[in-house]
């Protein structure tokens, strides 16, 4: 009986997450584009729903909600479905849509999609070789194999993303990196852009009544001017963007992000320093400052909480 109640709770939350993923896709990701293949939207929402459910199950595990055996069942079910999606469906569909866009291979889309998927599986399997995953307890085609590989790829991607974010965030928000742009600069550049466009127009007009000899010469000049106009356009857009950033940095939010930029830059430098020392002196790293800070705060508040989980 409790199993049924627990299952209905899980299914309800899954449906909610699915709906949320669907809406997010429609409203944010594809706001200005048209969805031609609804398969993409469905797969996105399903992946999102199952990932959120896994997270939810971990929270339930910590808090001790729901029956232990039903939790275990749902956990296994979730894991199987997510692995199925991640390893089989998503790579296959990515390969299928890539192949559909290449005109040469249009005839046998399915065949080439399968070939691409098999290549992906080969490299995916090869990934596990340097790691001590294969043990005599588990067979070769077990869940542990797949999970460990997915885990390795996932952690690497997250490390790359946070590294990128750590460098990009200060660069975007700190006012140290902002050039000074005045309205006069922008006006001057816009005037140059319009002048270049006018020159292009007059040269194209003279193309009509030019002799055969001058034709290629004028064509070359037009090409050069068009390239110049593209560069001027990009520079003007860049200046506008810088001006917006300057205005944003004067607001309260901008100042807050500026301060955070300085704080995180110093923190990142310290982390790199500590990591280098740990590697050089072959020490095992202890808990980092953030975990230590949470530990102290939580002990002060008197909550029973295992921080290392």
């Amino acid at each position, binding site marked *: 009986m409790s199993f049924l109640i627990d299952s209905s709770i899980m299914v309800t939350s899954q449906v909610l997450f699915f709906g949320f993923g669907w809406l997010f896709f429609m409203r944010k990701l594809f706001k200005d584009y048209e969805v031609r293949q609804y398969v993409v939207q469905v797969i996105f929402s399903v992946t999102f729903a199952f990932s959120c459910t896994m997270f939810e199950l971990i929270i339930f595990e910590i808090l001790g909600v729901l029956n232990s055996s039903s939790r275990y069942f749902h956990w296994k079910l979730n894991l199987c479905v997510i692995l199925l999606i991640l390893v089989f469906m998503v790579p296959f569909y990515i390969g299928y849509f890539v192949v559909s866009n290449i005109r040469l291979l249009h005839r046998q889309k399915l065949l080439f999609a399968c070939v691409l998927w098999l290549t992906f599986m080969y490299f995916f399997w090869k990934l596990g070789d340097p790691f001590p995953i294969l043990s005599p307890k588990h067979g070769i085609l077990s869940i542990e194999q797949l999970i460990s590989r997915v885990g390795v790829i996932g952690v690497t991607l997250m490390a790359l993303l946070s590294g990128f974010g750590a460098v990009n965030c200060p660069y975007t928000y700190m006012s140290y990196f902002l050039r000074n742009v005045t*309205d006069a600069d922008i006006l001057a550049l*816009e005037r140059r*852009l319009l002048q270049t466009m006018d020159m292009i127009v007059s040269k194209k007009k003279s193309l009509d009544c030019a002799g055969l000899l001058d034709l290629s010469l004028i064509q070359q000049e037009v090409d050069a001017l068009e390239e110049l106009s593209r560069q001027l356009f990009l520079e003007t857009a860049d200046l506008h963007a810088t001006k*917006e950033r300057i205005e944003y940095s004067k607001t309260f939010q901008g100042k807050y992000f500026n301060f955070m930029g300085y704080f995180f830059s110093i923190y990142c430098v310290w982390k790199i320093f500590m990591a280098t020392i740990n590697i050089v002196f072959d020490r095992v790293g202890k808990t980092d400052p953030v975990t230590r800070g949470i530990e102290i705060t939580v002990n002060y508040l008197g909550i029973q909480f295992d921080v290392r989980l």
Partner: protein
Amino acid sequence: MAALDRVKVLVLGDSGVGKSSLVHLLCQNQVLGNPSWTVGCSVDVRIHDYKEGTPEEKTYYIELWDVGGSVGSATSVKSTRAVFYNSLNGIILVHDLTNKKSSQNLYRWSLEALNRDVAPTGVLVTNGDYDREQFADNQIPLLVIGTKLDQIPETKRNEVLTRTAFLAEDFNAEEINL
């Protein structure tokens, strides 16, 4: 040749609907072989004999300004695009018949081109909603062109064409589908 009057016509629409191909077809009388993304604005000219055959015949140079980009671009790109929108004589709105969103975005394109603030490095002032009243006193003629008609199967053509007829009526514009 510069003594002839200039007529400036803007060609607007979403990315990939076929504006550059259209302009190339009109001005060079041949199909564009390798279309690539338009960065900024590309201009082409076409000679047109106004009122041909009558005593008031006059030859004009029509400049077709093909502005690239999408309607959801960053504000900096929109402000830069606004530089091309002054002293217009006409607007051609291009949309893709196989893509409904491109037809819906035409409203936002027309608002962007016609509603711009007068300030030089202007902040664009739009409220996002389409209101036919705003275009009641619009002097600039509009033309709506739907592209890629050949990619729609015969059975669906009628409903697509009725939908575009409503669109053209909203803008109080003529329409051509090719």
